[in-house]
């Protein structure tokens, strides 16, 4: 796009107009989109941070370095990047050809439609770009007041458990006194409440941050720590809240990666075919589209998987049903409901494992593949960890449980992560999981004075 930039931009603008016309005629209802043409470094930066203007941390720097190196050596290139907000921000690489950016714009339109209509995105904050900038400003302020090192150490700890958030948990759900532990189940429960009212008055002083045991195990570690950590200062709680808010924003994208990319690929192909492109660009498009769907080594290609699934759904149930899928499914439900034996065969999916030094294909049974896939996609690669007790042994120790689903935890990593949890909780932290074969409970605990312990 560099040479003859103004012309290329004018032409691109004309094409995007056409894309919007075609897309809307075909039934897409996207959020408004704001396109920007940017240099590669900016593209990589936004790609690495997930959002423009997000807070500073070395892990973002590491991601940036990886992306930039891949680009510098010509190994991989981000073609498109679109932010879920209102309006959506889409970034186009200034070094892309006109055709590449046309395809990207069509792809982006379908993403913007997905953000607007998929149920998992219904609750996401569309002003997240502004929020993230405010977050970054606050964190910068904390760096100024409390020192960069201090903030970095805190962020190291919080980011290490950032995946453990739960959109269903509300800010108040964990703020319960111990008296609410008992569940209501009889018509006479109000009598108990009378008795408790008197008791609460006596212990009124403890109201502020009561040592709690949640009524039900809570999946949202960040929220529980935010509400109940015995040691965090207010600014530290704020950092926990910042990371949690941003993670809740990213969560729907993790849950719908395959579906979203499949959806965008399906529509970019359809829209591009209805544009009036010169023949040489049609060839370039065909090549580009094929490269998007190419298997990448033995790694699963989410674009290809989602695309094939959606094409198959349309063949079997019609186009209208396709729009229903876009509205209600996530990756896990998509695979569970629609992956068929023929598709597993066509996509050449298989299960492999390590034998000695070799990676060997061990199973091609389609149901086995489907079940395993459902376990890897949509955030299911993250173990479910719940808070069972924030006042364990009556000593405000934190008791976590790994909900066992047959998959073993990486124990050395779990121990390291517990150290981070300790940084946030300040008392001994526990984690109950199971030993290798899954039969016996295995309990890890950490306190800096006594170090790591394991008991069976």
């Amino acid at each position, binding site marked *: 796009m560099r040479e003859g930039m103004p012309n290329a931009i004018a032409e691109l603008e004309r094409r995007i107009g056409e894309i919007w016309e075609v897309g809307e005629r075909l039934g897409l209802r996207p959020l408004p989109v704001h396109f920007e043409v940017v240099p590669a470094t900016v593209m990589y930066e936004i790609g690495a941070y997930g959002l423009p203007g997000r807070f500073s941390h070395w892990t973002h720097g590491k991601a940036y370095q990886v992306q930039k190196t891949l680009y510098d050596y010509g190994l991989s290139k981000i073609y498109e990047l679109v932010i879920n907000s209102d309006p959506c921000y889409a970034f186009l690489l200034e070094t892309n050809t006109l055709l590449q950016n046309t395809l990207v714009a069509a792809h982006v339109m379908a993403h913007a439609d997905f953000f607007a209509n998929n149920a998992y995105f219904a609750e996401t904050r569309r002003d997240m770009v502004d929020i993230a900038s405010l977050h970054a400003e606050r964190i910068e302020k904390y760096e100024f007041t409390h020192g960069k090192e201090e903030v970095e150490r805190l962020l190291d700890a919080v980011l290490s458990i950032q995946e453990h958030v739960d959109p269903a948990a509300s800010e108040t759900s964990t703020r319960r006194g111990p008296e609410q532990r008992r569940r209501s189940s009889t018509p006479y429960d109000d009598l108990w409440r009378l008795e408790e009212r008197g008791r609460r008055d006596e212990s009124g002083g403890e109201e502020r941050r009561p040592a709690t045991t949640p009524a039900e195990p809570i999946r949202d570690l960040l929220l529980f720590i935010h509400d109940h950590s015995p040691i965090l200062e207010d600014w530290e709680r704020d950092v926990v809240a910042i990371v949690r808010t941003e993670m809740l924003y990213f969560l729907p994208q993790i849950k719908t990666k395959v579906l979203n990319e499949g959806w965008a690929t399906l529509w970019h192909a359809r829209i591009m075919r209805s544009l009036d492109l010169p023949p040489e660009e049609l060839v370039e498009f065909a090549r580009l589209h094929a490269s998007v769907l190419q298997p990448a080594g033995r790694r699963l290609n989410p674009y290809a998987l989602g695309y094939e699934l959606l094409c198959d759904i349309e063949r079997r149930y019609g186009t209208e049903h396709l729009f229903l899928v876009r509205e209600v499914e996530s990756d896990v439900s998509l695979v569970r409901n629609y992956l068929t034996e023929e598709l597993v065969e066509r996509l050449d999916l298989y299960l492999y494992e390590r034998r000695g030094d070799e990676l060997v294909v061990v199973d091609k049974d389609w149901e086995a*593949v489907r079940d395993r896939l459902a376990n890897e996609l949509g955030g299911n690669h993250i173990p479910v960890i719940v808070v069972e007790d924030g006042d364990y042994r009556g000593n405000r120790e934190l008791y976590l449980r790994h909900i066992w689903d047959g998959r073993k935890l*990486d124990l050395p*990593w779990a121990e390291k992560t517990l150290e981070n949890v300790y940084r946030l909780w300040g008392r001994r932290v526990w984690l109950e999981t199971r030993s290798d074969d899954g039969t016996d409970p295995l309990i890890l605990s950490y306190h800096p004075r006594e170090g790591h312990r394991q008991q069976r």
Partner: protein
Amino acid sequence: MFTLAIRRDDWSLHRKGAIDQARHMEKVKEAIKRNLADIVSEQSIITSDGKRLVRVPIRVLEEYRFRFDPEAGRQVGQGSGGTNVGDVIGRVGSGRGPGVGPQAGDEPGIDYYEAELTVDELGELIFEDLELPNLEEKRLRELESEAVRFTDIRKHGPFANLDKRRTLRENLRRNAWRGRARIGDFSNEDLRFKTWERDIKRESNAVVIAMMDVSGSMGTFEKYISRAFYYWMVRFLRTKYDRVEIRFIAHHAEAKEVTEEEFFTRGESGGTRASTAYELALQLIREYYPPDAWNIYPFHFSDGDNWPSDNERCRELAEELLRCVNLFGYGEIRQGRYTYHSTLMHTLQRIGSPKLVTVTISEKADVYQALRRFFGPEVGREVARA
């Protein structure tokens, strides 16, 4: 609805990615520093010409989290059609060339990050707090480490040294004084120039006498260790001090002075008489380095397999050396079964002088410890106290 905008200039000030990347690199360097002991004796570095980049394998800075065991169980893969059960689709740790010893790629689930550093950058990390211990002021030439420091501001000077910020400020001030709040109408009196001073630290002369056992009993490992030590020692001295003389003595049953290149490359054979090396060292000192003008640092590396009849002579000569040197370092390389000290070590230790520092090296990683033992910040203090 869509809008299209082109941003071209706005991004130049956008440096967050680069700044966080720099912080990440800083953390990588910290990680390297923690692993210096292993890196110092890395063969590829010792044998490199010192100009190229060296690759230093370090563990990726892991971002720990709760995760499933990556090695347990099966994973979903995708082929390009026609894959069958039993097909081998890849190897663990493929893409790495063959090498000696336990290989990074063989270990499951561990990612290695290869940091690229120049030998000088690596040296900087290693030498950070090393120094020639017990350096005294002696007459004759100076050891100088020269630096130019900009220390002052003047109204005249070469334009290359124009201090733009101060000049602007002066101009602004002068204009303001005349009631105009702007920059412009520069005149000569606005100009400010930086001036510098040469910063010469006067230090005393120093000579290092590097002695190495090249006899037949020195195996590959022993030779490798002493070379690794001297490689870094020479680099250290050349980086930190502008003028340090280094003399190289190789010995077996007899000693001779060799060039630096010979010292690092040639191997000899035969029996061992360490006294010959000490004698030659004393002779060098007498001829060229009078102790009242020179700081003298003899170092000797050996496997300690000295002819027993020679030990007494060694003791006498070592005592004579100790009387005129600042520090005498003896490194003994004992691998595996020979973990007890040799008779030469015992003989030297019996002298009991605080200026005599001994080190036993039994594995590669000890080279770094030896460097710190000889040149570390505590050494000078210990010797001075004694």
